């Protein structure tokens, strides 16, 4: 069943057309990649899906529900989580707190219960702590639970950001260049990691990536964006041999 | 109300507006180059008034000498404040710098209380400004006329400086893009010092004229005009000098006119400026003439 449907999505910034007529349908459990040269408009599309930008034109449907122009926190509550190209953690908070705060949107206790330290809140807090530690275990960061998030090395910060996104219990996970700055070994690990969490957490994943190794090796379906326009869509083989794609990249392939 | 009375009110409004504009320019220029609301600007205003007062009262200088001295010393004070309290905080979160301006403001006010004493002092009004003139049937105090003329002259001088000189170009460059201006070889510190000097000088000039109009000097006299002028700058569009001028005149004329037409609200005229601010910030936060300014981070 269709999890995400995007129709004729466009974004104009004044005279600049960042995204033009973007369309996609993603089914449950799929792993889809969006690639393209820098500045092609990929993050802009993510920003529109997650509510950070209002589309100039077009519609976005999540699980059949029209979410175009909705507030980001409402969209997150519906089940879409994302990571950012330049990692946006909460640096002064601990690693554990970064994950715990991801559970906040599912909190049932009122501020009164929390402020007065009522047992009903205490139980919820314990549950959050337990689940957060479990999540940290799953991504291999449990040992650093009480460290300051801002002090983690880059690669681990990425994982933490993903863990925080997972805490919101999403159905659709948008990853914006998760492999940025990683060496081939780390990329391999990341690929396994993504596949694993897709299975463990029942996720659909839509990712933006620049690193061909990860995309070609793992994603059965790829879209290519250039200057805001979708120039190709298909399997890794099809994309690799598409002349338009090759031209768009023109030797700028990262390795 | 008769045309005559209306013109009288208008004249008052213009003179008040001119003063507000002069002080508002200081705020807007400082915000333009540093993205900082200088809460201490109103207190530099206050210092300017007191310096001019003491020049005449203690040092027996002729009024024009005392006035000029005050403007010069206030400019220096502005530069010192920037150097000591704001420059060290240029790279920290803006809120810390904002708190620093509050600290300077408090310091200046409290020093004022200690040095000048809490009792009001009477600012001299030289006879030249104390005459009643009849301009085309409208009776105004010569002071009002002079204030309007002086404000206009100073405003023209400001525009010339900012739009026709090299330093002015440098100021505009720094206000537009701090980092790029640095890369272009502009001496940022010099530009910022100059901006503070200019803003403070204008504030002092405004303070002198203000004090001739409202002769009671108190250490906290700069607080309300300071806030009002900042509001004027925001209404006109913070960072925009024409905006500050527009805001200043709108506020000045508006204040006089509101009290003239609705005398029951006279007590609330102080709140009027604040309500106007709240409205503008909610409806058009960039101000009337505000432009899109590049946000840092």
């Amino acid at each position, binding site marked *: 069943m269709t999890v995400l449907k995007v129709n004729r999505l466009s974004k104009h910034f004044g005279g600049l057309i960042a995204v033009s007529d973007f369309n996609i349908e993603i089914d449950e459990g799929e792993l889809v990649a969006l690639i393209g040269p820098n500045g092609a408009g990929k993050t802009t599309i993510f920003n529109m899906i997650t509510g950070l930008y209002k589309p100039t034109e077009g519609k976005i449907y999540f699980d059949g529900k029209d979410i175009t122009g909705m507030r980001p926190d409402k969209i997150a509550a519906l089940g879409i989580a994302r990571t950012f190209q330049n990692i946006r*953690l909460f640096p002064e908070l601990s690693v554990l707190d970064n994950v715990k705060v991801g559970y906040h949107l599912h909190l049932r206790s009122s501020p009164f219960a929390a402020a007065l330290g009522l047992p009903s809140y205490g139980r919820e807090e314990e549950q959050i702590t337990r689940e957060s530690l479990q999540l940290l275990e799953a991504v291999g960061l449990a040992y650093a639970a009480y460290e300051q998030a801002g002090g983690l090395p880059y690669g681990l910060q990425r994982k933490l950001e993903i863990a925080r996104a997972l805490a919101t219990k999403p159905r659709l996970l948008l990853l914006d260049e998760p492999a940025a700055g990683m060496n081939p070994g780390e990329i391999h690990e990341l690929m396994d990691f993504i596949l694993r969490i897709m299975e463990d957490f029942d996720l659909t994943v839509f990712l933006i990536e620049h690193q061909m190794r990860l995309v070609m090796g793992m994603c059965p379906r790829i879209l290519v964006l250039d200057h805001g326009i979708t120039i190709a869509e298909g399997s890794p083989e099809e994309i690799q041999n598409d002349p338009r794609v090759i031209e768009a990249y023109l030797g700028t392939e990262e390795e | 109300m008769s045309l005559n009375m209306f013109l009288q009110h208008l004249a008052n409004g213009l003179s008040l507006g001119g003063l507000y504009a002069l002080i508002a320019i200081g705020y807007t220029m400082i915000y333009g180059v540093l993205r900082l609301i200088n809460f201490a600007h109103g207190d530099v205003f206050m210092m300017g008034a007191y310096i001019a007062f003491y020049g005449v009262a203690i040092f027996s200088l002729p009024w024009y000498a005392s006035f000029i001295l005050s403007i010069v010393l206030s400019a220096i004070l502005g530069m010192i404040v920037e150097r000591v309290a704001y420059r060290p905080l240029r790279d920290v979160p803006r809120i810390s710098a904002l708190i620093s301006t509050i600290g300077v403001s408090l310091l200046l006010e409290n020093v004022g209380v200690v040095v000048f004493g809490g009792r009001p002092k009477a600012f001299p009004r030289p006879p030249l400004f104390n005459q009643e003139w009849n301009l085309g049937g409208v009776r105004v105090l010569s002071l009002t006329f002079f204030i309007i003329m002086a404000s206009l002259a100073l405003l023209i001088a400001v525009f010339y400086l900012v739009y026709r000189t090299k330093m002015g170009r440098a100021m505009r460059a720094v206000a537009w893009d701090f980092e790029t201006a640095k890369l272009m070889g502009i001496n940022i510190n010099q530009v910022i010092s100059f901006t503070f000097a200019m803003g403070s000088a204008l504030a002092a000039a405004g303070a002198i004229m203000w004090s001739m109009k409202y002769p009671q000097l108190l250490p906290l006299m700069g607080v309300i005009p300071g806030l009002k002028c900042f509001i004027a700058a925001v209404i006109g569009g913070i960072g925009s000098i024409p905006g500050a001028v527009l805001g200043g005149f709108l506020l000045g004329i508006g204040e006089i006119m509101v009290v003239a037409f609705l005398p029951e609200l006279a007590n609330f005229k102080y709140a009027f400026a604040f309500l106007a601010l709240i409205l503008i910030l909610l409806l058009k936060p960039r101000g009337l003439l505000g432009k899109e300014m590049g946000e840092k981070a």
Partner: protein
Amino acid sequence: MLMKKRDKRVLTAISLLALFLLLWWAEGHLDPYIRRILNLIAINIIWAVTFNLIYGYTGQFSLGHGGFIAIGAYVTALLTLSPAQKEQNFFLLPCAWPLNSVQWPFVPSLIMATLLAGVFGILIGIPSLQLHGDYMALVTLAFNEVIRVINMNLQSITNGSLGLKGIPAYTNLLWSYGCAILTIFIVWKLGNSSYGRAFKAIREDEVAAETIGISAFYHKLMAFTIAAMFAGLGGGLYANLVSTIDPNLFSFLLSYQVVTIVVLGGVGSITGSVLASILYVSLFELLRPIDQPITLGIGVTIPGRPGMRMVIFSVIFLLVILFYRRGLMGTNEFSWEWLLLKVQPIKRMMLWGIRRGKETNDGSKGE
């Protein structure tokens, strides 16, 4: 975790009990002047700790605290004054109905003050929180002043610039510290809860917080309103402490005072706010003499000028901002474990000293 949760709770309970016994004694035995200072400290703690909630935890800089304090103060004043006293106060213009005929006891008045301040918190918060940084500071400052001007002019409700005198002095150490402890408890609990994490997330990165489902506006408003409520509570306690209030007590200068205390103590640290409140109020009183000339026995007079106190405070404030931006405590908090860590080395040293003493005395080695 070095200490068991239960042990920590026991320690806290014992300390609180000790504190209350102390306050009970103090209320009966200490000089009224000293009691007044202690009460002021408690009230400032309430103001500072809750301002920290808005600024330290949620990262919103509001200069409007004075306005909410004013509301709280006037509410309790108007409710606790007797109709006869009101008639005396409102000689220029009679007090409006129904205020002129009501008289409430202390606790309901305080509750009303808290609630009403909270209502205004929501009303003022909704427009103010839509702005950021400097603009928010400015608009909250404007609201603070608008409230003051309105208070000055609502002759039949607030008695305008004449203020209110003879407010019953219900506030005593037990009430003020009771409320202060309650405030600290609530802010502490909230700050360490999921809501506290949400507040801090907003402070760290508002956009990222929205992305994980936290409505920035809703949470900012929550923090703002809670802070306003407690500011009002403190204001109410204040009115029934000093017995005389007028609108000018609650100007932006009061907001500046609260900001000063929080900055001095360390933004984001409740312990810091508590310590700084104690320091600020005490120092303020201690330095009172320098406002007057001091004569030292041998005929030497140190000239004192009224206002010197505030100059010194302003200088300290600026020094902190320029050089010790983290304030006294930074973002750290007091904890029993911290105390234990400080105490342990001393304990160890003492034990070592004792053992050594035994060794040298009877020549035997070790224990």
